[in-house]
């Protein structure tokens, strides 16, 4: 193994373990898992309430557990049309309908919370070391590029663990509370959803780590990364709203700079859709990181 790859591997492994046991990461991970469990539980409560009312209106026997009625509803044509209207295109509906309800609930939650989790954990990792000067111990022994990439990869791995733990928590709740959660389909669906969310989160890891390379103050780095995350959402929303012909086609280009552009692509089963999304999100992550690295590489430590 050449020197660069060896250093990259060593920094990645160390960053992963060090971040995993940092107090901040631990608190955020626990909060994330708790949120996954509580939100899944709340979603199941709502589902059960709707099913109870539905059963009572139709004068059916009250369902023993949540999910019994909704599994049937899920497969109905009327529900299919409703989802198609919400998503805006028919082709995605089959992929979504084919997904167990609990997996969709977890996926919705994970896509919403993960960018926040990533920004809270990753945005401080480099800036903390710049502020305390501890980066100097490693950087007198390896190149800045290997160190930066290692930091990024370590965070990427950490987010993967967070998603798996959160997914596991959601699955446990679903297994206990929902009738339709038995079988390998659900656990496989959870794993695939965790993977989709992880790919979606890659861009945010790049954003947070890139910002962290530019600022010595961890608090400021978190604030700027949060603003960046918000800005990406706003730009994405504006793109949706104002995209059109002529000069307004520029919004289409701007959309390519936001991770949201690829969110729905990740839900498709067809590899022809999600592989380009994976490549796009990875490229976005590296682009955000590179912008931060460009500042960092010339910085005096």
């Amino acid at each position, binding site marked *: 193994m050449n*020197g*660069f790859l*060896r*250093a990259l591997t*060593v*920094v990645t492994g*160390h960053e992963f373990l*060090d971040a995993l*046991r*940092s*107090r901040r990461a631990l608190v955020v991970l626990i909060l994330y898992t708790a949120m996954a469990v509580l939100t899944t539980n709340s979603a199941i409560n709502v589902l059960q309430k709707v099913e109870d009312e539905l059963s009572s209106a139709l004068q059916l026997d009250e369902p023993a557990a949540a999910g019994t009625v909704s599994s049937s509803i899920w497969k109905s044509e009327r529900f299919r049309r409703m989802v198609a209207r919400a998503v805006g295109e028919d082709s995605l509906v089959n992929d979504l309908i084919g997904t167990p309800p609990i997996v969709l609930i977890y996926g919705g939650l994970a896509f919403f919370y993960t960018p926040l989790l990533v920004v809270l954990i990753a945005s401080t990792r480099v800036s*903390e*070391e710049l502020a*305390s*000067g*501890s980066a*100097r*111990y*490693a*950087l*007198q*022994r*390896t*190149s800045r590029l*290997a160190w930066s990439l290692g930091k990024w990869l370590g965070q990427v791995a950490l987010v993967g663990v967070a998603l798996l733990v959160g997914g596991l928590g959601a699955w446990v709740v679903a297994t206990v509370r929902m009738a339709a959660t038995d079988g390998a389909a659900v656990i496989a669906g959870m794993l695939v959803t965790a993977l989709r969310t992880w790919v979606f989160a890659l861009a945010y890891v790049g954003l947070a780590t890139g910002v962290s390379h530019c600022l010595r103050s961890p608090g400021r780095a978190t604030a700027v990364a949060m603003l960046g995350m918000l800005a990406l959402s706003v730009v994405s929303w504006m793109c949706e709203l104002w995209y059109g012909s002529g000069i307004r086609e520029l919004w289409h280009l701007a959309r390519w700079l936001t991770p949201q552009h690829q969110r729905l692509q990740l839900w498709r089963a067809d590899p022809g859709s999600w592989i380009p999304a994976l490549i796009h999100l990875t490229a976005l992550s590296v682009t955000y990181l590179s912008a931060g690295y460009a500042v960092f590489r*010339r910085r*005096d*430590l």
Partner: protein
Amino acid sequence: MKTAIAWRRVVKQYRRLRALDGLSFEVPSGSICGLVGSNGAGKTTAFAIAAGLTRPDEGAVEAFGGAFDPARDSGRLTLLPQDSELPRDSRPREFLAFLGRLQGLSPRTAAREADRLLELVHLSDRARAPARTLSHGMRKRIMIAQCFLGMPEIVLLDEPLSGLDPREVAHMREFLARQRGRRTIVISSHNLHEIELLCDHVVFIERGRTVRSGPIDELTGAQDLVQLQLGGREEPPLDALRALLPAVTFAWSASERRLTARYDARRLPPEQVHDAILRSLLDARVPILGLSQGERLEAVYLGTADRRSSASPPSSA
């Protein structure tokens, strides 16, 4: 003597502050060199540039045949940076092993090195404690330990002994002295007594420039100057001494009770001068409290710094 590391006309400008203004000096291989200067003289910047952490605007620091490259020369030059902390959640053994692996040691060797160094700095019992739970002195010892991972050829230590308790200072001083001849060590310190005890070379820098450098013995005049601290109330027999040693210049400070003798060591062997002076003082029953060769480094430094400040106006760009 072979040069291990050399700063060559290094310039570094931080906005309006010129931290280094053409700094040039060389450190002989295998020596322990002291870097002395007032606050803001440029010592820390000089070290940061040498370790590849800061880029010079002009000039270069040469080691291993060119500018030090952390990736290419990993572990050959190490630095104890000033004002740097350990990562809060790191564990000493793991952290040292991580740095060891970064500089190319195998996992097993890195772990062994970490254990060896923790034993050296008397922290084996805290090997797995989070850094945030260690005292300042303990953390400092780990920071010193990381400099000696593997086989570094050049070690740069910025204020290595500040913050250590007296026992650890003595232990560390002894350890550093043992490194003489095995590796080149450059120590930046405000403690001139420490520099005097440890170093064989010294460099004075002020306002980013070298104002004086050379072997300590040469700078302090250790070869041709002897100072005696006398007790009692009797005056030393100056007339007898001048008659006995006509080639020696004597000076007597009654208030400090210090007798100074200056001579040319190339013509007059120091042993002969010492022997004659001591015999005369003992014959005259003047109590001798101490004898030292050369001036104190502090006096040399202060003399140099005073001359410098009175000769040149402040330089800020």
